[in-house]
C-alpha cells in the first residue's frame, strides 16, 4: 500500500551508536585533558596520553561524527530522493559493521598499533575494513540518489555526494602503505612527499567529515525546523562548488616553514584564504534565512543551535585561513592555540548541528514532541559555555606559549626554557578540564532528553495501537 514507508530502524541505530561512542570519546577527552596537568593519571602502557589521544580523536571523529552522519544521511537521502533506500538490508549490515569496526579500531589504538599519520593512525587491516564499510555506504546512498523519484536535487544531496566521493579518494590515497607484519606498515610516500600527502588528507578530512556533511544537515534542518525557506539557492550552489574546488588545494598550510617547496606553501595559503568566501556564503545564507523572521530564535529552541553552530563555523573559517598566513602560523603553530581552534569547530559547529539534527529526527520518527524543551535549552547553554571556555583558554595559552618560545635576550639566546613555558600552561590546562566537564554535563542532558523522548514516543505508539485494536 504505502510504497514510501521508510526504514528508520537503521537511522535510529546509527544515532544511538553515535551517542554511545560520543560518551566514550568525551570521557576519554576529559581524562587526557587532566593528564596534561597531572602526569600520574597516565596508566602505561595502554592508557597513557600518547595512546588515549589518538583514541579520543578517532572515536569522536569516526564514532560520534561519522556515526551520526551515516544515520542522518540515511534519513535525509530517502526524504530528498522520495524513495526508500535501495538496499535497506545492506544498510543494516553497515550499522553492525560500523559498531564492530569502531570497537576494534579503538582497541588497536590502545594496543599501540599505530602509523604516525595524524587522523589516519589505523593500521592497514583496519584501513581495509574502513574502505569496505565506505563502499557499502556509497553504493547505497549513491544508488538511491541515482534512482530517486524527485527530479530536483536539493543542495544537501550535493554536499552528501561530495562527502562520499572525496573521503573515499582521500582515505585510500593517504593510507597506501607497505605492510610489515599484521600490525605495522610504512607509508608508501617518503619524506616531504609523505608530509604533503598526509596534510592534503589531514586538512580535507576536516573539510569532508566536519564541513560538507554538517552543511548538508544545516541546509535541510534549518528550513525544516524553522519553517523559513533558504535565502538563496544560487548562493548555496555557488558556495558549494567553490568550496569543493578550493578545499583540496589547502593542505600545505599545515606545512608552512618546513622543507616543503615554497611555491606549494604559497599556493596552499592562497587557496586557504579564498576559502573564506564559500564558507561565508553558507554563513550569510543561514543568517539571511533567519533574518526574515527573528522570532524563531525565541520560539523555536532548535534555531539557537543552528545559528550558534553556523556562527562558530563562520568564526572558524576566519580563524583557520588567518592561521595559514606565514606570520600568524610562525607564532601559533605547534602551540595550544591549535586545539583551541579545532575544538571551536568540533564542539561548537559540528556537535551543535548534529545535536539539533538528532533533536529534530527522533521526535519525528516517533511522531511525538521532544521530552523537554527546558532540558534542551540547558543543554544548549552548557555546551556553549563549555566550548567557549575551552577555546578561549587555549587561545590565550597558545599565544603565550608562542611568544615565550620566540623571545630572545639581546645576545640572541632564548629568554625562556621549554619548561618555563610549560609551567605557565598549567592554570589554563586546568581551566580547560573544567570547561570540558561543563560541556560533558551538557551532552549528558542531551542524551537523557533523547532517551526520554524515545521512551515517550514508544509509550504513545503503544497507546495508539491499543486504542486502534479496541475499536476494531
Amino acid at each position, binding site marked *: 500500500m504505502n510504497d514510501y514507508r521508510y526504514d528508520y530502524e537503521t537511522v535510529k541505530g546509527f544515532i544511538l551508536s553515535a551517542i554511545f561512542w560520543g560518551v566514550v570519546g568525551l570521557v576519554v577527552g576529559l581524562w587526557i585533558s587532566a593528564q596534561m596537568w597531572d602526569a600520574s593519571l597516565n596508566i602505561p602502557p595502554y592508557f597513557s596520553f600518547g595512546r588515549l589521544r589518538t583514541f579520543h580523536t578517532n572515536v569522536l571523529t569516526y564514532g560520534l561524527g561519522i556515526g551520526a552522519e551515516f544515520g542522518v544521511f540515511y534519513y535525509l537521502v530517502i526524504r530528498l530522493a522520495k524513495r526508500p533506500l535501495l538496499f535497506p538490508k545492506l544498510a543494516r549490515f553497515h550499522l553492525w559493521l560500523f559498531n564492530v569496526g569502531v570497537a576494534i579500531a579503538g582497541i588497536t589504538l590502545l594496543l599501540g598499533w599505530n602509523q604516525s599519520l595524524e587522523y589516519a593512525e589505523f593500521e592497514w587491516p583496519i584501513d581495509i575494513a574502513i574502505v569496505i564499510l565506505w563502499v557499502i555506504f556509497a553504493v547505497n546512498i549513491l544508488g538511491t540518489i541515482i534512482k530517486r523519484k524527485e527530479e530536483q536535487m536539493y543542495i544537501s544531496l550535493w554536499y552528501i555526494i561530495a562527502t562520499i566521493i572525496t573521503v573515499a579518494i582521500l582515505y585510500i590515497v593517504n593510507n597506501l602503505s607497505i605492510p610489515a607484519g599484521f600490525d605495522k606498515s610504512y607509508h608508501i610516500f617518503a619524506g616531504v612527499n609523505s608530509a604533503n600527502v598526509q596534510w592534503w588528507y589531514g586538512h580535507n578530512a576536516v573539510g569532508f567529515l566536519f564541513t560538507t556533511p554538517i552543511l548538508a544537515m544545516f541546509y535541510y534542518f534549518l528550513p525544516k525546523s524553522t519553517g523559513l525557506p533558504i535565502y538563496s539557492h544560487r548562493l548555496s550552489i555557488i558556495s558549494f562548488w567553490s568550496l569543493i574546488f578550493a578545499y583540496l588545494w589547502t593542505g600545505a598550510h599545515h606545512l608552512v616553514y618546513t622543507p616543503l617547496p615554497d*611555491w606549494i606553501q604559497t599556493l596552499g595559503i592562497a587557496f586557504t584564504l579564498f576559502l573564506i568566501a564559500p564558507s561565508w556564503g553558507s554563513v550569510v545564507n543561514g543568517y539571511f534565512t533567519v533574518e526574515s523572521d527573528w522570532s524563531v530564535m525565541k520560539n523555536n529552541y532548535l534555531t539557537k543551535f543552528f545559528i550558534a553552530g553556523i556562527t562558530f563555523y563562520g568564526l572558524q573559517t576566519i580563524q583557520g585561513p588567518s592561521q595559514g598566513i606565514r606570520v600568524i602560523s610562525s607564532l601559533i603553530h605547534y602551540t595550544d592555540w591549535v586545539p583551541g581552534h579545532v575544538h571551536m569547530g568540533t564542539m561548537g559547529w559540528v556537535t551543535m548541528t548534529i545535536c539539533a539534527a538528532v533533536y529534530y529526527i527522533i521526535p519525528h520518527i516517533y511522531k511525538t514532541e521532544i521530552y523537554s524543551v527546558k532540558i534542551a535549552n540547558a543543554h544548549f547553554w552548557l555546551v556553549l559555555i563549555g566550548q567557549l571556555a575551552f577555546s578561549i583558554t587555549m587561545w590565550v595559552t597558545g599565544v603565550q606559549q608562542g611568544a615565550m618560545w620566540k623571545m630572545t635576550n639581546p645576545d640572541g639566546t632564548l629568554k625562556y626554557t621549554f619548561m618555563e613555558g610549560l609551567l605557565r600552561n598549567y592554570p589554563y590546562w586546568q581551566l580547560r578540564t573544567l570547561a570540558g566537564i561543563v560541556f560533558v554535563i551538557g551532552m549528558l542532558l542531551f542524551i537523557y532528553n533523547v532517551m526520554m523522548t524515545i521512551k515517550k514516543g514508544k509509550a504513545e505508539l503503544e497507546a495508539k495501537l491499543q486504542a486502534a485494536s479496541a475499536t476494531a
Partner: protein
Amino acid sequence: MYKEEFDDLEKFEREDTKHKLPLGWLILYIGLIVFGIFYTYMYTPAFTGWTQNKAIEETLNK
C-alpha cells in the same frame, strides 16, 4: 503505521531572493580571488625571487 509526510522542495527556497547574491559577499568572493592571484605571484620564488630561507635570513640579520 503512520502516513509519511513528504517534503515539498518548492518550499525550501524564498521566491523573492531566488537569484540574488548579496553584493557584499560577491565583493568578498571576487576580492579574495584577486588577492589570491597577487599573493601567489608575490611569494613564489620563480616569479619574484622571494624564498622562505631569504626571508628568515633577513629577520635574523635585523
